[in-house]
């Protein structure tokens, strides 16, 4: 096998693939253009794969086609069957696969560097490629084991509460330093044990980084792992001198980083404190003890709620993850339809952290056939609560908690919340008065004069309201 420079159309084809991927993301700026964007992505991927096969793969085509068929079939079936509520788990699982693929490609390049064009026939790998390879494998391994833990937590195979090892910051930092140090050493000694140790330590730290992070911070974690999977692809692109991989890696890396930033901001949490973990652990003794005084609250029935909403002009519905757990999105949309028939103006208000991943609630509502132009983001609708006759809260809690605005000692202080206290009437569906939100704090909204507590399973309650509305 001789190393000849590939024909220039090859470079152009990879560049075209990269540009098509940019257009795929660009399409997502509006639901109207999004499907065309997805097609661009598919075309880009086809170009990249066909180009590679045409220049490299003709020798072992049957095995490769077999591998693509197995993986592709599995992926396709999963994508068709997955429930929309389980989307965060699926995305975490997909991230882990990208991470593992990066590790495998890195190891394959290490074992056969000549075929990748990163060594002479003597097998001595170029120094720069060693760094890129080490980094690519490390990021890939962290993405893999971190995503596996995120998957287990999201899927309920593992408790969502943080697992805190003693001295974990020291262990984590030590492991990280060891990985960087070994990657440096790898440039002078390309023995297998060096790369093997880097790989093993990276798997370990991915695991250690995610176990102390609580369920409430999972949207940030999923976004962060999304970013890592991109950087892993970019590092491999550097190793292989491939533009399509570098462009894509940079796109995905920035995308995940921006989503992590948006999620952190929506919870008023710093990225560092999310990484440090522990949020959502049992509250310390003493805090909140004083607030446990019994305060009066009003209970309403489905008929009362139906009557009030029928007479209303503007109703704003605030769905949270609890709605998805109760599978109430379809009956909720029916309620919206019934109200619209009565001439009521119905809008949905979505907090950035409603659901378990960025934009999760929008997908769940879209699945229930709620038109996307009735769904509004926090900053676009928060000014409208003063004109709202009813704020209808279903399965959300922390995102309407006014203590985020007033109580400096609250764990959610500073988090942007819906100003539901400005609405004439607040209806709050909740299973019982006992439970508290994800962040484990009491909510003053329960005890306001204009609040009507609708205590029942969310789906059952909305069904009852619908029955009353239909009369």
């Amino acid at each position, binding site marked *: *096998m001789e190393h000849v420079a590939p024909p220039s159309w090859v470079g152009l084809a990879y560049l075209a693939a990269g540009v098509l991927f940019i257009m795929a*993301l660009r399409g*997502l*700026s509006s*639901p*109207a253009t999004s*499907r065309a*964007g*997805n097609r661009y992505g598919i075309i880009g*991927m086809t170009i*990249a*794969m066909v180009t*590679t096969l045409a220049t*490299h793969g*003709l020798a072992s085509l049957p095995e*490769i086609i077999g*591998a*693509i068929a*197995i*993986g592709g079939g599995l*992926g*396709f079936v999963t*994508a068709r069957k997955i429930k*929309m509520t389980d*989307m965060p788990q699926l995305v975490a699982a*997909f*991230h882990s*696969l*990208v991470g593992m*693929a990066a590790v*495998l490609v890195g*190891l*394959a*390049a290490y*074992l*056969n560097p000549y*075929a*990748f064009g990163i060594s002479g026939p003597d097998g001595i790998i170029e120094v720069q490629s060693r760094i890129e390879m080490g980094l690519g494998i490390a990021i890939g391994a962290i993405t893999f084991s971190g995503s596996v833990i995120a998957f287990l937590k999201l899927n309920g195979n593992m408790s969502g509460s943080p697992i805190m090892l003693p001295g974990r910051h020291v262990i984590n930092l030590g492991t990280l330093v060891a990985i960087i140090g070994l990657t440096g050493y790898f440039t002078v000694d390309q023995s297998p044990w060096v790369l093997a140790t880097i790989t093993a330590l990276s798997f370990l730290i991915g695991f250690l980084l995610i176990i102390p992070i609580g369920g409430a911070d999972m949207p940030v974690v999923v976004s962060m792992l*999304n970013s890592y999977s991109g950087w*892993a692809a970019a590092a491999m692109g550097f190793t292989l*001198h491939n*533009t399509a991989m*570098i*462009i*894509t890696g*940079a*796109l*995905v890396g*920035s995308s995940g980083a921006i*989503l992590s930033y*948006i999620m952190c901001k929506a919870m008023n949490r710093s990225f560092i404190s999310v990484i440090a973990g522990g949020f959502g652990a049992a509250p310390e003794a003493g805090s909140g003890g004083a607030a446990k005084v019994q305060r009066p609250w009003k209970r309403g029935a489905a008929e009362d709620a139906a009557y009030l909403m029928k007479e209303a002009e503007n109703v704003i519905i605030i769905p949270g993850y609890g709605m998805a757990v109760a599978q109430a999105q379809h009956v909720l949309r029916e309620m919206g339809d019934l109200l619209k028939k009565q001439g009521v103006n119905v809008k949905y208000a979505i907090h950035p952290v409603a659901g378990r991943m*960025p*934009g999760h609630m*929008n997908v769940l509502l*879209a699945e229930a056939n709620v*038109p*996307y*132009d*009735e769904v509004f*983001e926090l900053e676009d609708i928060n000014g409208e609560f003063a004109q709202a006759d009813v704020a209808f809260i279903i399965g959300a809690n922390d995102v309407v908690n006014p203590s985020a605005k007033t109580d400096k000692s609250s764990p959610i202080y500073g988090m942007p919340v819906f100003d539901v206290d400005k609405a004439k009437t607040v209806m709050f569906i909740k299973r019982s008065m006992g439970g508290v939100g994800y962040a484990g704090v009491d909510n003053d909204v329960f005890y306001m004069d204009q609040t009507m507590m609708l205590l029942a399973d969310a789906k059952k309650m909305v069904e009852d309201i619908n029955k009353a509305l239909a009369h």
Partner: protein
Amino acid sequence: MDFISILSVFVMACFVGYYVVWSVTPALHTPLMAVTNAISSVIVVGALVAGAAEGSAISKWLGLAAVVLASVNIFGGFAVTERMLAMYKKKEKK
């Protein structure tokens, strides 16, 4: 390609990514994640090179295993994105 050209492509792509992703509507952040997942599996290019190369049997099998994993993501990622995007509908005009 020399290192500086590759680095230039990378840095430019980071900026493009930054601006393009900020223009994505928050309502589509879940499909964004699904599709970035699919496209980051362009790592399949490396897997195909390894899977096709002669010279090391282990390297070849690692490559083929990576092709399987990346293909799950490519087909699964694009298919699930398509499925989600098909659900977003506008209000019917009356």
